[in-house]
């Protein structure tokens, strides 16, 4: 197949975006600008993700933006402590940090001096949009099943289902050859996810 014919021009062609892996590497080296670009890239995405996972009442008690920013900056502060050369791994780590923050926030919102209430009870009052859509049992089964997947499977599921990544970007993020390979990876991961959820099937 013929090679792509680039326009003959003195000006450079539009450069592909800096990869997340490259930005992560620069953040590790202390590059503040790379850190800002990385935050700018992920902040809107995480904000939207969080809005679907945070119960409405909890959102009224804490600013989602703050929560997401804190989680993102926290993750970047620990960029040396985990294997995040792949965008998929970084996103999965970010998701976990954010999920933990959301849970903490829910717990904090739930505490009353005279009435200690558990997270589950609060969740039953005002579920998140995601929980409203699938039900609490399915949500819990899903989270538990995700934990039992391999790291690659988990990343593939998260990127595709939760963050809406296209296959080409998943392929890049996962170090796979092309979009079809990424699609294959996602499909296999979903089959495994379904199997891992089996013990939690609704009765």
């Amino acid at each position: 197949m013929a090679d792509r014919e680039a326009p003959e021009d003195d000006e450079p062609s539009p450069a592909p975006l800096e990869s997340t892996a490259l930005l992560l590497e620069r953040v590790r080296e202390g590059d503040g600008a790379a850190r800002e670009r990385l935050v700018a890239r992920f902040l809107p995405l995480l904000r939207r993700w969080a809005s679907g996972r945070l119960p409405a009442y909890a959102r009224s008690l804490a600013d989602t933006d703050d929560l997401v920013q804190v989680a993102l900056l926290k993750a970047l502060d620990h960029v040396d402590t985990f294997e995040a050369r792949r965008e998929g791994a970084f996103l999965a780590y970010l998701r976990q940090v954010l999920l933990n923050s959301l849970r903490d926030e829910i717990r904090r919102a739930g505490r009353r001096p005279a009435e200690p209430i558990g997270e589950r009870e609060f969740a039953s009052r005002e579920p998140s949009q995601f929980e409203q859509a699938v039900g609490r049992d399915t949500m819990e089964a899903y989270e538990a099943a995700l934990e039992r997947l391999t790291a690659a499977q988990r990343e593939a599921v998260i990127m595709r289902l939760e963050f809406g990544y296209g296959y080409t970007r998943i392929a890049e993020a996962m170090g796979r050859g092309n979009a079809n390979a990424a699609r294959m990876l996602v499909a296999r991961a979903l089959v495994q996810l379904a199997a891992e959820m089996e013990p939690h099937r609704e009765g």
Partner: protein
Amino acid sequence: MDGPLGNEGRGIRDMTTPEEEVLAGQAAKIADGENVDWDRERSASPTLDPQLAGLERVARIAGAWRDLGVTPEDDDEDSGPVLFHWGDLEAREKLGEGAFGEVFRAWDPMLRREVALKLRRDAGEDDSARAELAEARQLARVRHPHVLQVFGVDVRDGRAGLWTELVRGRTLEHELRVRGAMSADEAALVGLELCRALAAVHSSGLAHGDLKASNVMREDGGRIVLMDFGSVHELDSGMPGAARTGTPLSAAPEVLAGEPATAASDLYALGVLLYRLVTATYPVQASSLAELRDKLARGERTALRTARPDLPTAFVSAVERAIEPATEARWADAASFERALVNALELAASMAPADPLPAAARVAPRRRPVSFSMVAVLALAVIALLWSRGVIGPKPAALANAPEGAPPATATAPPVATNTPTQTVTPAAPATPATVAIPFAEATLWRSRGENRSALVDGGSISPGDHLFLEFESAEPLHVYVLDEDEKGETYTLFPVAGSDLANPLPTTARHRLPGKHGGSPFDWVVTSAGGREHVLIVASRKPIAALDQLVASVAAADPSRPVNYANVGDETFATLRGIGGMEAAPAAPSRRESKLESLARRLRANSDGGFWVRQLTLESR
């Protein structure tokens, strides 16, 4: 798709058993967002019932996530299936077809962006196809904001094609059909940008060859883009133009006579286009090529002055000269034509009715140089926007960091695409730009004074006499609310206001300048008093917000015909607002007294589910 995995599922066939392949096929459909008839699938594969039931559950999870609409802003890749590959491009959707071939929306994984892919039906091996491809390669060298950018040309998989930027908008032909003839000013502004586009094309040694309303797009956001270079060719090629020109009524006489297209014939076509934009007709009308040639030979045409006696003379003269039958009588080049149009606009501006603040007429000459001269004064005390914390705005760093008096970056740059990673985060930044790019809208609050124009930032200052206006554009119709509150807690509505030509929902057809026009003339908010702090709240929503509509109705609104009476909004009203979406009491009170609008902004923001956004700006009025 041809089977459970379709022709994209090749990679999954290495799974070991047919059952696993069935499951993977259904899983791939889930990942693609396709609907699956689970009852049918279970009937077809009864032994896989438990596994399919599990996948059905996973499908519900996938659907729930899809409904939340979480997608990367910098990833334009379509999640739908790939129709086919052409080289490394992934064709996603057919946009149209004709005798030449087909046009697709495609994904370019190298550029990581959507592109328009135009494919010939053949490999382009005949002479005319080879010539077209060679010319398209030349065109790929032209880089100009108002010229469709060509990314590449190639022959792949037995088909010749080229891929270009994908422009979303409407053709001028469509605008003509929908809106009718334009004003001279609006047509002249289009003409200016096309003159610049043609200058770039001609300086590359090319002629467009088929400039007409259907080949010019107004992109969502306002950028004028010269498209469809199907007839482009080298100026020195000597190739006859008539046979290749599809629009005789726009073609110069010499092209109709068989001579090649030139820079002069392009300028003629541009003249015809401008003529048509203001009249909706052609200077020479004919029902056949023979009749057209005959009329041209006899010099029969309807003078623009006759067709539109009301148009400014300078504009009429500029256009009439462009469509002179003799090439030597036309404008010498695109730059000359452009200067003539600029002069026409400036002359029109100078003859406009008296202007309370004449300097404002020169704020944005490329957009509305004339209409800006008719700024009506609104007796408002303030303004400011709000942008709350440190998440902010677009890379248009050039815009965000523009020095006072500098022209806005958006005046010359293509509109900020909603899918580009333009947001940056500066958590420690004390001041935030007044422009915020969000998935579906962009807004900038401007302050103009005399020749100077600057984007306002949170914490900025304003003074009596300052003109303020909000530029707003979005990719979808939005309901926009702009409110102001002074230090005393008096509140009024800045938008929507009665008498403005703009009303909710704001259409996506252009970058809007709020508060809009009154009686055909744009008006601004004008600062009329000094002292204290002003809070402005801007809310944009996909749906009307009933509580805000009630608030807007309950407080005084800006009125171009009289000073504004302030209204102190009662706590009861704000209590109602607190009920939006079931919001609860606010968390810990801030250290200084929180204005009602700040409180409202915080509550709206906390309750945002992506269907609306809220921005607040506090300014010092000095």
